[in-house]
């Protein structure tokens, strides 16, 4: 391990560690129970509702919120916006952990998890949207891992390996961008076969575009939120000054504002193309308007005002609202507006064990981020590699 990085000794028993430990224990117990007794007793999934919280939140939302990795690395390495360089490693780490947890969530959700590699070795089904997602997620998880390794190699002092991976940066970024564009939209494409199950306000033949654009919003908003949080929690690690962070936040707000504007336009155009105006006056329409008004229009205005007035507090609040909005959108598509015509007793509601496993997975991601960022050069530059990125 490199000697130039000081290892800060922290107490093991802290309120955060105790609470996180209890949640992880509960999650491990619920996970073990699910594998011991199967899906039927441990979840509320059935043939009418085969996809529940683990797909709706852990996979659909997890992939969208992990989009910061490809968004920021493309901005820095492909579009030359070098001023955002300090955000690349935290975004890539968040992306890697996010995708890793997507795969873990998928393993818990699959009735026969040992069949996860089947798309590659048994039945490829290359015309299937699910195959494309399996391929892209597997490849992108690998790409994110390789993109993250320079930080680990710097920490370990493995200079040759670090130099080798560093040379691949541009190629990996391009590959990651292609893979993300493909599977972020294909997650939406999976719902193209559900016109009779998904409420018409959320269903659209353009749903892949909705998913991709909203993933860009999620990625940018997560980076704004996470960088502000890291700056506070890891104040002793962060090298970027408050002024520099504010400048980056303001720049990201402009991009997120434009992305939200585009998203709003394509959502309205979708309603117009399918002539669904009358549905807006129904209870589901009110819920739809709540999603669009509260979590698309509101953060868009917040970002615009924050950027114009250079008010980072407004921008960070808008980022939180936008992130909650993406979570709500994915849950609406996969749970709340799905099977909307079924009577109430046949509708899906997550089993407590499903909720416990999901909360435990999110907690595991936060703990891993904290552990890695507290040791490796994620939020600061390694002294031996300063300015080499």
């Amino acid at each position, binding site marked *: 391990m490199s000697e130039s990085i000081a290892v800060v000794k922290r107490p093991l028993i802290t309120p955060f560690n105790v609470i996180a430990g209890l949640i992880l224990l509960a999650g491990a117990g619920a996970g073990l129970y699910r594998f011991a007794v199967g899906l039927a007793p441990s979840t509320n999934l059935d043939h009418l509702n085969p996809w529940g919280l683990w797909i709706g939140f852990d996979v659909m939302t997890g992939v969208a919120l992990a989009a910061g990795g490809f968004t920021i690395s493309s901005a820095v390495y492909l579009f030359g916006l070098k001023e955002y360089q300090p955000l690349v490693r935290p975004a890539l780490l968040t992306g890697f952990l996010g995708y890793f947890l997507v795969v873990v969530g998928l393993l818990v959700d699959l009735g026969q998890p040992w069949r996860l590699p089947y798309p590659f070795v048994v039945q490829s089904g290359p015309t299937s949207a699910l195959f494309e997602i399996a391929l892209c997620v597997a490849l992108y998880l690998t790409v994110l891992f390789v993109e993250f390794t320079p930080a680990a190699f710097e920490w370990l002092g493995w200079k040759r390996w670090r130099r080798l991976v560093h040379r691949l940066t541009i190629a990996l970024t391009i590959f990651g961008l292609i893979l993300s564009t493909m599977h972020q939209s294909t997650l939406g494409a999976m719902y193209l076969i559900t016109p009779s199950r998904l409420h018409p306000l959320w269903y659209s033949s353009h749903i892949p575009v909705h998913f991709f654009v909203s993933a860009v919003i999620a990625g940018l908003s997560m980076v704004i939120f996470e960088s502000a949080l890291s700056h506070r929690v890891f104040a002793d690690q962060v090298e970027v000054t408050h002024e520099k962070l504010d400048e980056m936040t303001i720049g990201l707000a402009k991009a997120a504002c*434009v992305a939200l504007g585009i998203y709003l336009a394509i959502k309205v155009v979708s309603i117009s193309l399918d*002539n669904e105006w009358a549905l807006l006056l129904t209870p589901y329409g009110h819920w739809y308007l709540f999603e669009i008004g509260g979590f698309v229009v509101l953060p868009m205005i917040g970002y615009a005002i924050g950027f*114009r007035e250079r008010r980072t507090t407004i921008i960070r609040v808008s980022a939180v609202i936008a992130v909650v909005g993406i979570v709500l959108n994915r849950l609406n598509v996969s749970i709340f507006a799905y099977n909307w015509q079924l009577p109430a007793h046949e509708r899906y509601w997550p089993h407590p064990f499903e909720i416990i496993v999901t909360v435990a997975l999110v907690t595991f991601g936060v703990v891993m981020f904290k552990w890695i960022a507290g040791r490796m050069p994620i939020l600061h530059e390694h002294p031996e590699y300063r300015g080499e990125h």
Partner: protein
Amino acid sequence: MHTLQDFFHFTKGMTYIIAALFLVGSIGFWLFLTSREDKP
């Protein structure tokens, strides 16, 4: 609306108007967003 022709005529017409409004609106929105950008 009685025929598919009617449906597409109406929805496409509406969508073109909305798209044009968004394009015009985007200019105003961009000007609002960036009007103070170059000022110190």
